[in-house]
């Protein structure tokens, strides 16, 4: 029980320290830190309206975070969530455009999900395969694939697939209003949140309660040991990457089918990179990703209010995320070093 306590106490403490540092930064920048914190709270969780904005932003973050968290359990640092999200969203939009009107919405939406997950899993699965079978550094290759995905999206969206009616922001043709993911109940929160939470829970179960997840942890902890025990290390690594990629691809599909209705450059709005932060904050635990994504979604949602109420640049939330990320990583050094957080030695 106390080991669990340590893995909650240290990130929480780090979060407090980073908020303190952020407060000092805000104070130096000439704003009142307490009022700014109050505004962040109001903009993120202060009203039902704010909650809805926060939760809508949290949904893609949960899924892109999985794209870093699952490979991380198998020992790989993958930062390709952005590219997988773009590739997934774009392929989902193509599917939606192609099937629009010929099939009932239920089938179109299912096909879009399936195609987005398939694209995402191939996208990041390739990263894992290149790493294991060819020795290509996964961090760099996934980063390069981000740029390639964005360039491909731009190429098609500005070129042959452009809807001539979208002048200011070149986009593909719409997938059709009937094929949109609706809102949950009477809220303005789309079903993407529900999907995100379900997938996080399902993958937590897979990682923590099955032999597959255990094998992945072993491979991530010590490749030699995993090979000696006869685990199919290559397959585990590729599967971890493919599952993560599928999640990020689904995030792209949700952005297309629940928010924009078409594919455009809003797909690379930075959810992929913010997902890396969420994954590290959650220490690559799929269940912890849910609250962390909501927290980060809230911070991002409050950016507009900070601009209006305090005349702070919209990059303020970026600075805050940067400080949180740095402090959380630094806090990794504290595990096992704080005596009052250690479990008591069991009597033999």
């Amino acid at each position: 029980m106390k080991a669990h306590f340590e893995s909650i106490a240290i990130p929480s403490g780090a979060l407090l320290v980073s908020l303190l540092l952020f407060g000092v930064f805000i104070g130096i920048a000439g704003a009142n830190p307490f009022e700014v914190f109050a505004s962040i709270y109001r903009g993120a969780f202060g009203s039902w309206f704010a909650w809805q904005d926060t939760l809508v932003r949290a949904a893609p973050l949960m899924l892109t975070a999985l794209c870093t968290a699952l490979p991380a359990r198998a020992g790989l640092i993958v930062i390709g969530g952005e590219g997988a999200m773009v590739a997934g969203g774009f392929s989902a939009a193509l599917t939606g455009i192609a099937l629009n009107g010929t099939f009932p919405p239920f089938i179109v939406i299912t096909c879009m999900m399936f195609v987005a997950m398939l694209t995402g899993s191939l996208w990041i699965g390739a990263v894992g395969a290149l790493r294991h079978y060819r020795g290509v550094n996964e961090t760099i290759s996934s980063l390069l694939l981000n740029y390639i995905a964005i360039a491909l999206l731009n190429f098609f969206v500005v070129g042959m697939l452009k809807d001539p009616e979208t002048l200011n922001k070149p986009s593909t043709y719409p997938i059709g209003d009937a094929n949109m993911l609706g809102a949950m109940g009477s809220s303005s929160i789309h079903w993407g949140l529900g999907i995100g939470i379900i997938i996080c829970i399902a993958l937590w179960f897979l990682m923590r309660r099955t032999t597959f997840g255990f094998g992945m942890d072993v491979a991530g902890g010590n490749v030699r040991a995993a090979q000696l025990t006869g685990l199919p290390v290559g397959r585990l690594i590729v599967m971890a990457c493919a599952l993560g990629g599928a999640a990020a691809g689904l995030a792209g599909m949700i952005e297309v089918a629940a928010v924009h209705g078409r594919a455009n450059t809003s797909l690379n709005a930075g959810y992929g990179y913010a997902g890396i932060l969420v994954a590290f904050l959650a220490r690559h635990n799929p269940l912890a990703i849910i609250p962390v994504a909501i927290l980060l979604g809230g911070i991002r949602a409050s950016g507009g209010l900070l601009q209006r109420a305090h005349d702070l640049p919209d990059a303020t939330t970026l600075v805050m995320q940067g400080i949180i990320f740095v402090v959380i990583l630094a806090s990794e050094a504290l595990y096992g070093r704080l005596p009052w957080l250690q479990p008591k030695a069991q009597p033999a």
Partner: protein
Amino acid sequence: MSHEEIGLFGILFAVLGGAIRVGTPFLFVSLGECLTERSGRINLGLEGNLVMGAMLAYGISYLSGSPWLGVAAAAGAGAMLGLLHALLCQQPRVNDIAVGIALMLFGTGLAFFWGKPFIQPSAPHLPSLSLGAWSDSPALRSALEINVLFIAGIVLAPLLAWFFRNARWGLNVRCAGESTEAALAMGLNVNMIRLLATMAGGALAGVGGSFLSLYYPGSWNEGLSSGQGLMAVALVIFARWDPVKCVYASLLFGGAAALGPALQSAGITWGYYLFNAAPYVLTLAIMIATSSAKRRLPGLPGVFSNLK
């Protein structure tokens, strides 16, 4: 001379000039990353240094009227971010790649935060040398309009190679990069070596950023960098951890990135965005072709051998 002929040479010169102009920031970040990695640490956060350097160089140049003061400030800011990276990474269990990603977020966030007032005004630029004055072709003349920072970069590369090969400090850096244990046994302060190498590398990345805002494209805005700092790590792998090869790699990348705009200026607009992907596809293809699951990459510092 017919219009088409000028078009073809125009493309060639535009790619050449673009290779130098677009390649200069690549050159500085790759030299910086090369130095850092040779000491045994990877700094993935040079994008933060680059953007921070670009913003600060522009701001200082605007406020003081001296672009060189701007370059110095950019180098200083880059060194500070490098210092932060080094101090975090020498803690136990802190992953240097993750710290790089965090500092990239932190550096770009700070740059955007403080850079807001500098988006509008125009700051004095860095001077350039007209090496093409002998030619009467305007395309060639504009291609050979060479910035002094580029010249500083190509002078620095062989100096750095000499430093690694012949200087005592350079050998110490390489020793720390080859084997932590051996360096400790020699009585070297490995953490200090890596700290200084990361700071110097970060400063170089900051200078690369100052080129972006003070010469080409030559203004400060939030979309200034298109990931040049992130590409540093890939470039260094491409250049096999050899500073002189970093020059070739940067020029090749600059040329690949200049291909789309050059074709566009010659009237070929098809596939402009596809050519944007050229440098990334090129790097990925080269990494796939040269990597191996079994042996170590030639030139790879020894401490990375477990991570390939």
